[in-house]
């Protein structure tokens, strides 16, 4: 088979995104916006649940909003994704002045809090290249 005969089929299933945010109303808002853009969205309220999901389900993109009181655990999840070489992109939402900011910059794309839900949707679409442009 030569290269010219290869047909690139469009991806059929939407990427799965795990939204980790401890504020339920923000989590709800962000998840709804992403679902409206046809992503499959899973929700977790904290790092421990995020790890449970990551162990059980293939996740294409992990969005973690770091809580000032528990930012270290969120970073631990990002570190684990990298350590395990998971095929998971990471976006971290960071508040201004957070101590973890410098460390977080090592792990993925950064979104500064407060953010608009449209910002996260746009960033996710760009990061995952979804929907893929027709060949």
């Amino acid at each position: 088979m030569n290269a010219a005969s290869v047909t690139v089929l469009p991806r059929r299933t939407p990427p799965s995104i795990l939204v980790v945010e401890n504020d339920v109303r923000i989590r709800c808002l962000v998840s709804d916006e992403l679902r409206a853009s046809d992503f499959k969205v899973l929700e977790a309220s904290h790092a421990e649940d995020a790890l449970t999901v990551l162990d059980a389900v293939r996740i294409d993109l992990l969005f973690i909003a770091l809580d000032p009181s528990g930012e270290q655990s969120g970073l631990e999840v990002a570190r684990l994704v990298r350590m395990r070489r998971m095929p998971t992109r990471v976006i971290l939402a960071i508040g201004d002045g957070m101590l973890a900011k410098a460390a977080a910059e090592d792990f993925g794309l950064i979104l500064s809090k407060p953010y608009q839900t449209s910002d996260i949707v746009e960033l996710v679409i760009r990061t995952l290249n979804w929907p893929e442009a027709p060949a």
Partner: protein
Amino acid sequence: MSTTSTNIPLRADAPAPTVLVVEDEVLIRLVIADYLRECGYKVHEAVSGEEAIAILQAPEVSIDVVFSDVEMPGDMDGFALARWVRANKPGLQVILTSGAERSADIAATLCEAGPLMKKPYASQDVVDRIRQLAARAKRS
């Protein structure tokens, strides 16, 4: 009329009920929430009674049915949440579920649809219960 992979029709001309799933076990919550979405329902998720109340009080969110576990961490279990709903959101339907042997009588006094659903439940049974409640609400 739209159909789902499980052949559960939802009328295209009627808005699908919005369900609040309250469950602290993340994988259980994901499975039932995913199933309900595949069936055409709009679903919000909460991990505790406190989160459920935060959603129920949010002006931008409208919930038709609460599907809640009984045993949850924190100060508010499913029974307490159902009592809160009865006091603050009369008319909002509640379905309780539990894996423990608890008094069905308590659930019966709190849920219009009768005693609690025992875990493990079949996802389809949850959908059937929601449809019953939605039909009852429409008649009343």
